């Protein structure tokens, strides 16, 4: 297992990516130190990078899952088309998250080999179209909940994008659940 979420930036890279923080913190350094307020801001930026990178890792897995599904030979052509559309959404999420991490001066986490995702997701146990869709539904529901659950830990600049991604995942889950013939949940607040 070589997946690495440990992309701590150097202090220089943190400041280099922090926009307005750069000149102010630079002044503080020249003056002989960094105030606790600046240090706290750096910590918050670093925390955001870590969480956003975890979200990128989640999107990498989702993209891989749809790739595995599309090439499994288990799906009807129309279902493959839907899966590739959803995969495109996940690629859009990944790209937005990668940009956010880079804007913060961080290094986006890289994807793993497809075989590693296949093993971790138990792809070898998938024997039918229904099996594939159930896995996709589980992952999409999980992703919607994950985005909703991490919002309080993210800086406010990223709340909206995380919520929008949660909405996309919930949309995918609804269609997959529908395709599998699952009933509509009776209770409100389905996700989160």
């Amino acid at each position, binding site marked *: *297992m*070589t*997946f*690495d*979420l*440990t992309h*701590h930036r150097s202090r220089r890279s943190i400041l280099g990516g922090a926009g307005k923080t750069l000149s102010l913190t630079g002044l503080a350094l020249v003056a002989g130190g960094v105030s606790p307020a600046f240090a706290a801001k750096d*910590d918050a930026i*670093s*925390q955001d990078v*870590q*969480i956003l*990178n*975890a979200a990128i*890792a*989640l999107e990498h*897995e989702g993209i891989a899952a749809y790739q595995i599904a599309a090439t499994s030979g288990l799906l*009807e052509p*129309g*279902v493959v*088309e*839907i899966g*590739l*559309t959803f995969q*495109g959404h996940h690629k859009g999420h990944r790209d937005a998250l990668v940009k956010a991490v880079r804007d913060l001066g961080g290094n986006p986490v890289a994807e793993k080999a497809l075989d590693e995702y296949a*093993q*971790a*997701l*138990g792809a070898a146990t998938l024997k039918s*179209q*229904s099996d594939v*869709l159930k896995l996709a539904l*589980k*992952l999409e*529901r*999980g*992703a919607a*909940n*994950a985005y909703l*659950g*991490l919002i*309080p*830990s*993210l800086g406010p600049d990223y709340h909206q994008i995380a919520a929008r991604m949660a909405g996309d995942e919930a949309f995918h889950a609804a*269609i997959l659940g*529908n*395709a*599998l*013939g699952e*009933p*509509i*949940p*009776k*209770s409100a607040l*389905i996700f989160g």
Partner: protein
Amino acid sequence: MRIDVAACAVSAFIVFGASASMAVVDDGEPRAAAASEGGGADAASLIERGAKLYVRKCGACHSPDANRIGPRHEGVYGRKSGSVPDFRYTKALGALDIVWDEETLDEWLTNPSAMAPGTAMGFRVTDAEERKAIIAYLKTL
């Protein structure tokens, strides 16, 4: 490639023969308030609830038996933090020197980044009853 997703959904509907009646059913996940009003579910039902919550709230990143976005959870209860040998943790987790028990897991699930600033896990379980159920399930892994 542009695809009309709504049309695709209809296609999927046809492919899988889903009922157009759109049945409504309880999702089987008791809400926290209902559980509290019940006044103490037994251990088995707590674990059962925890298992469902685990899939719903933890399953995007974790599995019991495979490292994914986060480390596998098999044997997590009673284990030292950051100690799954083939998973690469953040420095924050590497520096967290605790054993996962009811107390530490509860604190962790409440707010991971407060417990280990710099962790990649941002997910919070804000409901105490849900944390209790999830921890009860984690004990069984």
